[in-house]
């Protein structure tokens, strides 16, 4: 066992867990942050994507001790951030996914949204190709991706109009 000192969604948490646990296991099974999903076991699908200092990474391949000094954001953190920015309910991007029909089974989408959110933070006006490139590590089996592109494009448009994310 080792105590990991983590910063997750703005909270500072100390978690005691076996050393060989991955960040995904810590999030899901030790902290109950079950929004990040496990699809492939080993870095092939993108469902477990979280942001580490704003950068999308696969939590199933992250050793928790290597991110102790960094800000980890999970899907649960987006609405937290949105509300602390003065917004209500879910974030703009999460709403856009809902409105566009981009969520069918929903299992890949927490990871997909974390990748898309990082894209919008670095590029507020992505074109279709930018979106495809940014999401090329997130497998979706339901949608054929089109409605996901629509969601990201619409969030980018609304974010531009409202000046917030």
């Amino acid at each position: 066992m080792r105590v990991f000192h983590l910063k997750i969604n703005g909270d500072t948490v100390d978690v005691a867990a076996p050393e060989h646990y991955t960040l995904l296991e810590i999030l899901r099974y030790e902290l109950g942050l079950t929004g990040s999903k496990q699809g492939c076991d080993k870095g092939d699908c993108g469902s477990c994507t979280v942001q580490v200092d704003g950068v999308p990474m696969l939590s199933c391949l992250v050793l928790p001790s290597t991110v102790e000094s960094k800000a980890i954001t999970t899907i649960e953190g987006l609405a937290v951030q949105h509300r602390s920015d003065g917004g209500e309910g879910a974030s703009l991007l999460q709403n856009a996914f809902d409105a566009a029909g981009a969520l069918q089974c929903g299992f890949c989408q927490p990871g997909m949204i974390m990748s898309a959110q990082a894209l919008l933070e670095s590029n507020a006006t992505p074109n279709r190709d930018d979106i495809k490139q940014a999401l090329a590590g997130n497998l979706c089996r339901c949608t054929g991706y089109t409605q996901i592109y629509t969601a990201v494009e619409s969030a980018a448009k609304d974010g531009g109009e409202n000046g917030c994310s």
Partner: protein
Amino acid sequence: MLRMPKFKVLNPATVAEAVDAIQQVEGSRFIAGGTDINPNLKHRLLEPECLVALNGVEEIFGISQTEFGLRIGAMESLTNVETNTLIQQLAPGLASASRQVSGPQLRNMGTIGGNVMLDTRCKWYNQTYFWRKSLGFCLKKDGDVCHVIKGGSKCVAAASNDTAAALSTLQAELEFANAQGSTRIAIDKLWQADGIWNKKVGPHDLLVAIHLPAALLNQKGSYKKLRDRNSIDFPLLGIAARLKISDNIVDDCALCVVALQARPWPLDKASALLIGTTVGSDAFNEALKACCAIAAKQCRPMPNIPGDHAYRHAMVPVFIRRAILSCLD
């Protein structure tokens, strides 16, 4: 969930601490971005008692111009290498190869050093413990047969590191540290033709930085990768090219291929044919044809990684030509 084996993790802050830490427990391994070693751990291809994490070692980060040329800290992520303006300008082939490694998240995590030190790959090896056990394991791990070559006694798992090919064309020098001190080795001298461990340095030698000599910078470069999907996949074939062109004449040329056999393979005979020809001339076109043909003869893909190896062979001349022509765009 596919489980990690049990291990402990050391988190050194300096190179000195890291090379000391790795010696504390027999069989310890370094972990950089974790994108190669962690799946391998989950597959029980390695079962070290201790991992030494390198992410806290500041000395092995950074991309900067030096007297020698360009220094890339081994812990720089592939995303950083791909998007760095110095690298894009001075070593476009390396930027291109980095951009084609796996998918976006894995490039954010995976490091240039990790890609150089990548374990070789084989479709009979990169599998779970259960899977490998079901067919009696193999030479590379836990067994004594080769499923690629019947009766084979030498492991032919394939070097699958995209950036190694580009670094070879740039004659990169690799700076290693260990308990005895620091050494530099030319990348083409790093390899040995053994799929079990295809490097002449050991797992306890820490790759600190990659140095690109100034004389070969600021030239044309490209990387062409054969794969089934345009993201995530390892190479089925990878060709890196570097061309120096002065007054429309090919002054210098280097080619390197990966994803054939245990080591990246510089194609010096093939690339030499282009030197001295004028781009677009009949001589250039003839040389290009001959270059592709000789490369195809030199390269013998094996059924070690997924994909039809005869097809991979057929693609060697096509990808060589495309890599070279893409330098001229």
